C-alpha cells in the first residue's frame, strides 16, 4: 500500500467535489452543486477523449440525422459558467477511500472531499469461439456445397472484452467512439449488410441507425422475441413484422456459436442452429452492466464499498462510505414499482440521481424516492413507449388486471397493467400520444378502477 502511494505523483490540490463521469448523472450533479455552492472546486474526470456528449444520440449520429456539432447536450459555456475543471482521457484505476484519493492507470492521483461515482456502464461481451475460416467465403457463395470450416485450424481463442477490438469488423455500440468507428468502417468496407447480436434496446437502436442508412440487418436474439425485457409478444410482433418487411432477418431463440475470421478480419458468423451468415460487420449489443472495475481494483486495500449488480446507495445517493456518492447507470437503487433494488440504466433517472447526489454533496437535503423503468424507442417510424412493469411474470392469484388493444394491421398496440386498482405498467406502440399521463398515474399511485370500468 505504501509502496503504491510512493509511486503516485502527488497533487496537493484537493477537489471539493470530484466527479467520475462526464455524462447525464455527472453533469446533472454539477448543476445541482452549483445551486448551493458557487465557489467550491469541482473536478470532473472522464475516460473519454470528447467533451460531454449524449450517449443515446450516437444512434442519430450513425443514422446521419445529426452531426458531431449537435451531439453535445451541454454547450461549451457550461464548464466555464459552472467553473468546472474537466480532465479527459483519465482512466481511473482505483480509489483509496481512506485517504480520499482517486488514482488513474497512469499513476496520477486526485484528492477529494466529496466523491461522486457516475462512471456509467460498460458493454457485455459474451464469450464466443473464434474460428479461422479460410474456405468460408468461397463455399458460402455456392450454397449447394456443404460449408466446411477447416476443423484443424480452429483456434482455441475466445472472443471477450479484452480482445474483440483486435478483430476488424466487430464493434460494440455504446459510446461516441463506437459510432464513429462503425461509421468509418461502413464507408471503407462498403457495408451493405450487418449482424447485430442482441435484440434488446441497444440492438434495436443500432438496427434503427443502420436501416436508416440503407444497411440490411440480421438480428440475433437469444429469447423468443425482440425487446423481451419490456415488450410482450404482441408488441414485439409489430416491430418484428415491420423489420422483416424492411429487408431484415430476425433470428430468435438463437445465438452466435462461432465467429469466422480470416486474417483477423470478420467474414461471417455461425449460429447455434449451424446456419451461417456472411458478414463483415458485427455489432455486439447484448447489454450493458454497471462498470464496477474501479471498485474491484480498489477492494484489496480498502474499505469495502457495497454493491450487487450496481453500487448500492441510500436515498441521498450516498454509498455505505461517507462522502462517496453514486448516481446513474452504475448504481443499483430503489425500484418504485417492485420495491426492490434495481439497476435501471435510463437517462432520466441518471439526471435525477445526479441532481440529488449533487444537492446532498453540497450540504443540501434532497431524497430520491425511487424510479422505475421507462423508455421510448422508434423503429422504422413506429414509435413505442414502455413504462414500469410491462410483463408481470406471475399472476396466479389474478390480482393483476391487463387491458389490451392489439391492432396489428394498424401497427397499433396498447397494454395497461393494473395491480389492485393502480397502474404499474404500460406499453404503447404506434401511437404514443400522452404516454406520460400514465407515468403520472403510476408515480402518484392513483386508483384508476373507476376509469376502466365498462
Amino acid at each position, binding site marked *: 500500500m505504501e509502496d503504491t502511494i510512493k509511486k503516485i505523483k502527488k497533487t496537493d490540490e484537493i477537489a471539493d467535489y470530484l466527479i467520475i463521469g462526464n455524462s447525464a448523472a455527472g453533469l446533472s450533479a454539477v448543476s445541482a452543486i452549483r445551486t448551493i455552492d458557487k465557489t467550491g472546486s469541482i473536478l470532473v474526470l472522464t475516460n473519454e477523449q470528447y467533451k460531454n456528449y449524449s450517449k443515446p444520440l450516437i444512434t442519430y449520429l450513425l443514422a446521419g440525422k*445529426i452531426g458531431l456539432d449537435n451531439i453535445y447536450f451541454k454547450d461549451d459555456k457550461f464548464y466555464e459558467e459552472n467553473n468546472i475543471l474537466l480532465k479527459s482521457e483519465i482512466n481511473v484505476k482505483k480509489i483509496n477511500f481512506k485517504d480520499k484519493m482517486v488514482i488513474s492507470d497512469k499513476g496520477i492521483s486526485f484528492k477529494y472531499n466529496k466523491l461522486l461515482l457516475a462512471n456509467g456502464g460498460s458493454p457485455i461481451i459474451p464469450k464466443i469461439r473464434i474460428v479461422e475460416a479460410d474456405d468460408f467465403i468461397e463455399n458460402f457463395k455456392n450454397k449447394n456445397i456443404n460449408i466446411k470450416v477447416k476443423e484443424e485450424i480452429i483456434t482455441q481463442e475466445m472472443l471477450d472484452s479484452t480482445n474483440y477490438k483486435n478483430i476488424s469488423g466487430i464493434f460494440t455500440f455504446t459510446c461516441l467512439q463506437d459510432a464513429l468507428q462503425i461509421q468509418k468502417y461502413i464507408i471503407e468496407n462498403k457495408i451493405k449488410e450487418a449482424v447485430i447480436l442482441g435484440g434488446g434496446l441497444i440492438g434495436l437502436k443500432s438496427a434503427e441507425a443502420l436501416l436508416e442508412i440503407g444497411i440490411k440487418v440480421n438480428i440475433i436474439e437469444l429469447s423468443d422475441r425482440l425487446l423481451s425485457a419490456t415488450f410482450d409478444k404482441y408488441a414485439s410482433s409489430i416491430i418484428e413484422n415491420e423489420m422483416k418487411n424492411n429487408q431484415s432477418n430476425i433470428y430468435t431463440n438463437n445465438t452466435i456459436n462461432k465467429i469466422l475470421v480470416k486474417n483477423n478480419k470478420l467474414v461471417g458468423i455461425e449460429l447455434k442452429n449451424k446456419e451461417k451468415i456472411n458478414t463483415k460487420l458485427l455489432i455486439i449489443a447484448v447489454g450493458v452492466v454497471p462498470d464496477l472495475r474501479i471498485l474491484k481494483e480498489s477492494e484489496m486495500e480498502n474499505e469495502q464499498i457495497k454493491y450487487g449488480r450496481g453500487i448500492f446507495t441510500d436515498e441521498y445517493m450516498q454509498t455505505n462510505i461517507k462522502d462517496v456518492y453514486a448516481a446513474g447507470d452504475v448504481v443499483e437503487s430503489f425500484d418504485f414499482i417492485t420495491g426492490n433494488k434495481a439497476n435501471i440504466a435510463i437517462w432520466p433517472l441518471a439526471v435525477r440521481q445526479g441532481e440529488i447526489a449533487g444537492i446532498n454533496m453540497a450540504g443540501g437535503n434532497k431524497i430520491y424516492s425511487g424510479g422505475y423503468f421507462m423508455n*421510448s424507442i422508434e423503429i422504422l417510424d413506429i414509435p413505442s413507449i414502455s413504462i414500469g412493469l410491462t410483463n408481470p411474470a406471475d399472476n396466479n392469484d389474478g390480482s393483476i388486471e391487463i387491458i389490451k388493444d392489439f391492432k396489428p394491421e394498424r401497427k397499433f398496440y396498447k397494454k395497461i397493467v393494473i395491480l389492485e386498482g393502480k397502474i404499474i405498467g404500460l406499453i404503447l406502440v404506434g401511437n404514443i400520444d400522452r404516454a406520460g399521463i400514465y*407515468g*403520472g398515474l403510476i408515480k402518484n399511485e392513483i386508483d384508476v378502477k373507476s376509469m376502466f370500468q365498462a
Partner: protein
Amino acid sequence: MKKIFIKEEYCIACRLCEIYCQVEHSKSKKILKAFKNEKDILSRVLVEEVGYNSFAIQCRHCEDAPCVEACISGAMQKNKNTGIVTCDENKCVGCWMCIMACPYGVVKRDLSEKKIASKCDLCSDEEYPVCVRNCPNEALQFKDI
C-alpha cells in the same frame, strides 16, 4: 414568473384557444392563409372534454420539469431567468422521451418537417399568450404565481 391558470368552471369548450394557438404558431400567422396553405399545424393547447366538463391545458412550465430531465439532446431547457420551458427545434431529435415523461400529456409529436417535440412556449414574444387573450370566458388566465 407568470403562468397560465386553468379555470375549468368557465371553460365552454369552444376551442378558440386551440385555433389561436395554431395561427400563432403558423408561418403566416394569418388564420385563412394558415388554414389554406399550411398543413398539420399543431395546437399546443388542448381542450379536454367529457360530457359537460371541459378545460384547456397546455405546458405547466414545471419547476422540476420531467421533460427537461428526460431530454437526451439538451433541446428541452428551462430558462433560469424566465422559468419558461422551451424546446430548441434545432437540437431536438424527436426521441419522444419528453412525451414519455410529461405527466400532463402536453408535448406532441410534430412530424410536419423534421421530427420534433411541440409544446407551449407561452407565446414569449407576446404580452399575453394568445390562448389566454382570446378566451371569451376567461377560463384561461395569465397571472403571477
